[in-house]
């Protein structure tokens, strides 16, 4: 049918829209950050990296994102295993626990965590009534609180890719290994874990890129005192009116995000080629 050759044109409205309202602005932002008065220059970056405060913020952002990803992975992997074995009502419980928090906005959840961590908040009340501490512990405004809150918000994005891979895995493979005399630990590290790695990579890439650029969660849980790259970006645009700095930091965030996407798809391809 001749018609099918022209069918590609149907993609044009959507593509044009995203090219103009998404790709072009990002490209301009990136180009502009390498430019001063029309000249190609990395002076803005040099300025950014020469300030030790900025380096502290960059390091804190990466550290928080990494620890958030690790915490989410440690909770998510066993959960995905349990979920892949669950049937009936238990499976529904797991599914609701994933989909409902995903449907509730970040603003609501970050706000909830700020109530929980408050000095006279839910967690301290509980700890004191259990007699674990006498005086309230300062939790809000700490990095640990931020990591716990962020891991909570991003957990479903870690559980679901791992669950999807585990569910499709042929359950007879570990059994076959067992019948050949493999111990449970050996089976886990040589059968289940390697087969589930694509899900782990996808989950980690997604959670890390969300965590590196999160804004609402740190501004509600740690506030202005401990800046992250995205808070610094927002501040330089909305309060300091230092747009050159803001453009540089957002380009750095953009470069991190693109590296994560490219790196993880390269890794996923290699894993796919091996198995």
């Amino acid at each position: 049918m001749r018609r099918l050759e022209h069918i590609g044109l149907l993609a044009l409205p959507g593509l044009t829209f995203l090219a103009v309202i998404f790709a072009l602005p990002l490209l301009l932002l990136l180009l502009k950050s390498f430019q001063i008065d029309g000249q190609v220059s990395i002076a803005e970056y040099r300025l950014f990296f020469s300030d030790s405060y900025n380096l502290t913020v960059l390091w804190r952002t990466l550290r928080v994102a990494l620890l958030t990803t690790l915490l989410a992975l440690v909770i998510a992997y066993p959960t995905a295993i349990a979920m892949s074995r669950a049937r009936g009502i238990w499976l529904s419980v797991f599914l609701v626990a994933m989909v409902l928090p995903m449907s509730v906005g970040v603003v609501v959840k970050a706000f909830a965590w700020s109530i929980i961590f408050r000095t006279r908040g839910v967690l301290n009340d509980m700890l004191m009534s259990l007699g674990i501490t006498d005086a309230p512990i300062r939790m809000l405004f700490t990095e640990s609180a931020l990591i716990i809150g962020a891991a909570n918000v991003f957990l479903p994005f870690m559980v679901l890719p791992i669950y999807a891979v585990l569910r499709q895995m042929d359950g007879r493979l570990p059994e076959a290994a067992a019948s050949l005399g493999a111990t449970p630990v050996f089976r886990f590290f040589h059968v289940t874990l390697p087969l589930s790695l694509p899900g782990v990579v996808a989950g980690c890439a997604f959670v890390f890129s969300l965590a590196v650029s999160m804004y609402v969660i740190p501004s509600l849980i740690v506030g202005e005192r401990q800046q992250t790259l995205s808070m610094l970006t927002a501040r330089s645009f909305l309060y300091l009116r230092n747009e050159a700095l803001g453009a540089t930091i957002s380009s750095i965030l953009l470069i991190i995000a693109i590296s994560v996407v490219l790196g993880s798809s390269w890794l996923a391809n290699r894993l796919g080629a091996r198995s």
Partner: protein
Amino acid sequence: MTGTDRLFLTLSWVIGMGCVIFLMLPIVITVAASFTSSSVYTLPPPEWSLRWYQSLERRSGLWEAVTLSLNLAVVSTLISLVLGTLAAVAVTRGRFRGREAIATFTVSPLMMPGLVVGVALLQFFREIGLRDAHWSLLLGHIVITLPFVMRTLLASMATFDFSLVDAARTLGLSYPRAILSVLIPNLAPAYLTGGLFAFLASMDNYPISIFLTDARNKTLPIKMLQYLEEQPDPSLAAISSGLILLAVIVLVIGSRTVGLNRMIQG
């Protein structure tokens, strides 16, 4: 099953159940805190009361923010569904090079930092002279919603039998009519889940919207963070509980019509 097997499995169940509680915790806490009679967040509340729900009436600008957010979410989702259907049909049925790349590109806004997209749009709109906040917000929100729609539509069209559309054409329907009366009803579950998640993503967005608002056009998340700075009383928990109710309604609709399992496949 050996003892070690059982230990492994028990341990993963314990952690799994802990994870369920951990995930539900912020939702339960928010709803419980909204029914307090006290003006600080203590749980369990000294007395149950609806006073913070009643206080919402006096919150200035709340209603405008809710209407603006609903308006943006509905309109941007509808536009995304139209653009998304056309693009997904083209990618699934077209015979041209670079279809993979197009599919990846249309989903890619999901992987980009929202704040960076917001900054880029702010500078871009200023350069082309677009000053109207409402239009800027709408364009920005289509960038938010389109990838959600594309992701589900691409996945479901990949397994759709397009000979049904061809059959309808042989029976005399034009191509657009065939798409409308055969493809879309058959893919109703994908339209529903893609549309619902796109709607919620738009309702919740803060990092893109914050760069595109002005004093008169403030979306609900922006207004909520502003209240939190000015007057952080439990009325915020009441607004949050309203949003949680919205998510529950979406979940019920989704699980009744397409099933929970299909919803998580995105």
